[in-house]
């Protein structure tokens, strides 16, 4: 089976600087039992990054922060990375291992080649313990910074997507 992006490309996309406007988790909207927020960062070349934040209203430790990429030639979201909370087990299908705990999904070439969803591989993570600390970890790992209002980045535009 083919793959869309190899591991080098995935790493480069993760490391690419991304600027967003400041926001608060208190502004997240609730529907179907979870809070959510979506941020789109449009690049100068027409491609974009997409950040999705989800937090379960019943169990706050059940959350997910997702970084996706949409190339200018495609209409599908490629999930680069996902920081999950501590509410369910995860199984890595190729390595045949299962664990329970905070974990980070990461896109890999090998999972794409096997026909699995690109971010099926995950590792346990002890660098965060709730949504707020997960967001810090996510921003650090995906090179996300807050855009200064005085010096906006001409090559990027940020949008907050509100689903109605």
């Amino acid at each position, binding site marked *: *089976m*083919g793959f*869309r992006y190899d591991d080098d490309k995935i790493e480069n996309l993760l490391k690419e600087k991304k600027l967003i406007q400041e926001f608060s988790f208190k502004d997240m909207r609730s*529907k*179907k*039992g*979870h809070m*959510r927020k979506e941020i789109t960062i449009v690049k100068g070349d027409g491609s974009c990054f997409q950040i*999705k934040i*989800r937090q*379960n*209203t*019943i*169990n706050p430790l*059940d959350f*997910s922060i*997702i970084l996706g990429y949409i*190339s*200018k*030639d*495609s*209409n*599908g*979201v490629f*999930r680069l990375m*996902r920081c*999950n909370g501590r*509410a*369910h*087990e*995860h*199984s*890595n*299908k190729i390595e045949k291992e*299962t664990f*329970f705990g905070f974990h980070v*999904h990461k896109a890999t070439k090998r999972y794409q080649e096997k026909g*699995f*969803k690109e*971010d*099926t*591989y*995950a590792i346990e993570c002890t660098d965060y313990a709730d949504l707020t600390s997960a967001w810090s970890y996510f921003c650090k790992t995906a090179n996300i910074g807050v855009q200064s209002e005085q010096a906006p980045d001409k090559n990027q535009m940020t949008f907050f997507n509100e*689903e*109605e």
Partner: protein
Amino acid sequence: MDIKKIEKDFKSKISDKINITSEGKDRFRISTPFVFNDGDHFVVVLKKRNENWIITDEANTFMHLSYDINVNDLEKGEREKVINSTLSMFNINEREGELNITIENDDYGDSLYSFVQGLMKISDIDYLSRERAKSVFFEDFKVFMLGKVPQERLTFNYYDEEHDKNKTYKVDCKINGMPKPLFVFAINSDEKCRESTIVEMTFEKWNVKHKSLAIFEDQEIINRRAVAMLTDVFERQFSSLYANKEKISKFLEDTIIK
């Protein structure tokens, strides 16, 4: 409540891989081998609500679906039908995004069995989205071609009557009216890519004079080797219908007037 007995009931009714872990007062996490397509396991919790014991996903299933699907789309069309019929079929309740089943007559094993089956069916909505997306591409391709070329010059699913009475080697769209007709192929999978290459090579073998064009839905997701083989055979290709509509229009315009 004898939790060990309940665990034994779960194992016998569903799988030996079921385990129960206490997580606070009157709350137990049930580990099952059932997963979403990204390796995350279903959230299944046994807990007491008022005077009843319930099995619940604590709203995780819909939250997980929302990674790929707009949650508003779960409340309309085909997806809503699938969800409602599943809830009804397996006696599952929905409460503000939380799916749950009430245990009656100490029927823990059967309740868990029904619940998990319901979750599996609902999580399949993610695949429903992708299958519909595949058929949408061919529809979009057809609409695009009809918008750019006079209908009388188009033949969809064309085959060569002289060489191919079994209609084995089909071209997605033939444009006639030129000295050499244009054979256009719409490609959205590895299989279609290889198949189109074979069809094109067969027409060459038959010495059928024509020009060839391949239009991908998204060439980036197609196996590289398959694309390479197609490239050796096709005269022209575009990596994405959606990102190249203007260029494809120009190409068609220039080609069909010659």
